C-alpha cells in the first residue's frame, strides 16, 4: 500500500492525480476463511482491521451486500461523544473516543476527526438535573463534561438564541469539549484500505442469505448470492438487518428496526463552531467542512426496512432548529435520507457470543453507533479472536435481557446520538 503523505499529494499534483489507484483490493472470495464478518459498515470493516492488526488473524473476509459504507455508516450525522451515564456505556464510548483521537494516524487516512465540542441544551429543570447527574458521573469516571450557563453556552456557540422569551428557552447546557464529528465515508474507506493492506478480503455486492451449521450446531459458513463460503467463525455486524441475519441462525433478538432520518442544507460559509443537540425538542445540528448544515431528526414510530421516513418527522426537527437558531430560518435544505437503525429496549448495544457456537454478534447500536465505530470494532475483534468479551464490553451481552441487568440509557437520556 502506498503511504499517503504531503509528498504523495505534491507528487500527484504534478502528475495530474493519475497515480492514486484503488484504495482497497476487490478479490474473488476464497472457499473458506478463518473469520467472516457480515456487514461492510465501519464496525465490520474496523473489526476486520483490528483482527489483522492486533490478533494476527488475516484470513478474514468482510461480506457486504451493497457497497461498503452504504448503510448507516454513510447515512449518519457523525456526532461523536462519550458522556453517557452508565459505566458499561462510558467504558466503550470512551475507549472509542480515545481511538478517534489517533485514528487518522493509525490508518494513514484522514478521517477528519474534529473535536469541536458537543453541546447539549437544557430547557427545563428536568434536563438540568439529568445533565448534572451525567456530568458528575462522567467526571468521577475521568470523562470530560461540564455545565455551562446560558451566557457561557452563547459564548461557545454564538448563533444560539438564549432569550428568556424564546419558544424553547435555555437554562444551561452540558459541554463535552473532546466530542465532535468525523468524516463518515472516510471511516469506512480508511478501515477498508488498512484492512485490505493486511490481507483482509473486502467483498462487495455479496449478500449473505443463510448461515450454515454442522450437526452439533456450530457455524461452518454462510450462503451468499455468490455461493457458499466456509468459515470457522462468523461475526454479524449488520445494523438494521441484524434480526434478519440472526433468524437465519434461528435466534430471535431483542431488536426493532426503524427509520432514522437526516438532512443537509445548502453550503454556507463557516458560522457554526460546534455540535449542538437538544434532546427535549429533538434537534441536532453541526456544520460540515463543506459548509452544509447536517441535521438529524428522530426515528419513525413503526418498524421499517424502507430506508425512508415520514416528512412530518423532519418538519418537526426543522421547526425546532429555526426556533433555537432564528438566523437559519431562510436556509434551504438540499437533501434528505433515511437509514434503518436497530434499536434495543434499553437503547444500549449488544456485543457478545450467541447461543450458536462460532457466531458472534455486534448490534443494537441504533441511533448512536457511529461514535462507537473504532471502539466497538476493536472490542468485537477481541471477542471474535478470543471467544470471550473484552473487559470493556463485558456488560453488553445478549443475556442481559434474560438476567434483567439492562443498561438503561433509554431512561437516562431519552434520545441517543
Amino acid at each position, binding site marked *: 500500500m502506498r503511504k499517503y503523505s504531503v509528498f504523495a499529494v505534491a507528487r500527484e499534483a504534478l502528475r495530474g492525480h493519475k497515480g492514486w489507484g484503488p484504495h482497497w483490493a476487490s478479490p474473488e472470495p476464497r472457499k473458506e476463511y478463518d473469520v467472516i464478518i457480515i456487514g461492510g459498515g465501519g464496525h465490520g470493516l474496523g473489526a476486520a482491521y483490528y483482527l489483522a492488526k492486533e490478533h494476527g488473524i488475516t484470513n478474514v473476509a468482510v461480506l457486504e451486500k451493497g457497497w461498503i459504507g452504504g448503510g448507516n455508516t454513510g447515512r449518519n450525522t457523525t456526532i461523536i461523544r462519550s458522556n453517557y451515564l452508565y459505566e458499561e456505556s462510558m467504558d466503550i464510548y470512551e475507549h472509542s473516543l480515545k481511538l478517534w483521537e489517533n485514528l487518522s494516524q493509525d490508518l494513514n487516512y484522514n478521517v477528519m476527526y474534529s473535536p469541536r465540542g458537543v453541546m447539549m441544551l437544557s430547557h427545563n429543570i428536568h434536563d438540568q438535573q439529568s445533565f448534572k447527574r451525567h456530568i458528575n458521573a462522567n467526571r468521577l469516571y475521568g470523562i470530560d463534561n461540564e455545565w455551562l450557563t446560558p451566557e457561557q453556552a452563547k459564548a461557545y456557540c454564538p448563533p444560539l438564541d438564549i432569550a428568556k422569551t424564546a419558544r424553547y428557552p435555555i437554562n444551561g447546557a452540558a459541554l463535552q469539549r473532546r466530542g465532535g464529528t468525523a468524516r463518515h465515508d472516510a471511516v469506512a474507506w480508511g478501515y477498508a484500505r488498512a484492512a485490505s493492506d493486511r490481507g483482509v478480503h473486502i467483498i462487495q455486492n455479496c449478500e449473505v442469505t443463510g448461515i450454515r451449521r454442522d450437526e452439533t450446531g456450530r457455524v461452518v459458513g454462510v450462503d451468499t448470492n455468490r455461493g457458499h463460503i466456509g468459515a470457522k467463525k462468523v461475526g454479524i455486524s449488520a445494523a438494521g*438487518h441484524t*434480526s*434478519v441475519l440472526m*433468524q437465519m441462525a434461528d435466534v*430471535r*433478538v*431483542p*431488536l*426493532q*428496526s426503524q427509520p432514522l432520518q437526516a438532512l443537509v442544507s445548502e453550503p454556507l460559509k463557516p458560522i457554526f463552531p460546534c455540535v449542538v443537540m437538544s434532546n427535549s425538542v429533538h434537534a441536532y445540528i453541526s456544520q460540515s467542512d463543506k459548509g452544509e448544515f447536517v441535521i438529524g431528526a428522530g426515528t419513525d*414510530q*413503526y*418498524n*421499517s*426496512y*424502507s430506508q425512508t421516513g*415520514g*416528512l*412530518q418527522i423532519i418538519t418537526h426537527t426543522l421547526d425546532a432548529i429555526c426556533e433555537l437558531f432564528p438566523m437559519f430560518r431562510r436556509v434551504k435544505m438540499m437533501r434528505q435520507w433515511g437509514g434503518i437503525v436497530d434499536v434495543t*429496549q434499553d437503547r444500549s448495544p449488544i456485543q457478545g457470543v450467541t447461543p450458536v457456537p462460532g457466531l458472534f454478534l455486534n448490534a443494537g447500536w441504533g441511533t448512536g453507533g457511529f461514535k462507537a465505530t473504532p471502539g466497538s470494532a476493536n472490542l468485537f475483534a477481541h471477542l471474535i479472536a478470543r471467544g470471550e468479551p473484552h473487559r470493556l464490553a463485558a456488560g453488553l451481552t445478549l443475556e442481559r*435481557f*434474560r*438476567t*434483567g441487568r439492562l443498561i438503561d440509557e433509554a431512561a437516562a437520556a431519552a434520545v441517543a446520538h
Partner: protein
Amino acid sequence: MLLIYCPYCEEERSELEFRGAGDAHIARPANIADITDEEFEEYFFLRQNPKGLIFERWRHIHGCGRFFNAARDTVSDRFYTTYKAGEPKPDISAILQSEQDKGAAK
C-alpha cells in the same frame, strides 16, 4: 407519512392521529409472576422484527382513542389491511390473490 384506515372510525386518516403500539398478537402470560426468566425474555424482549409482513398494533389516539391491529409490509410500508382488536390474523395471501385477480380483470 402513512395513511392509516381506522377500522372503528371506518376512515383513512393521517399517521399524525395515530400512535404505533408495537407487535400485535402477543399475549401477556396470565401467570406473569410464575414464569421463568427465559419465558419472560421471550414474551417481553424478543421480537421477530420481520423484513416483510408485520402484524402490529396502532392506537387512534387523536380520534376514537381505540387500539386496533394492522398487517403491513415493512419494506414498502404499505398496509395490507387493518382490523379490530381481538379479531384473528387475516389471511394476507387471500388479500394479495384477490388484488391480483382484480388487476388481471382490468
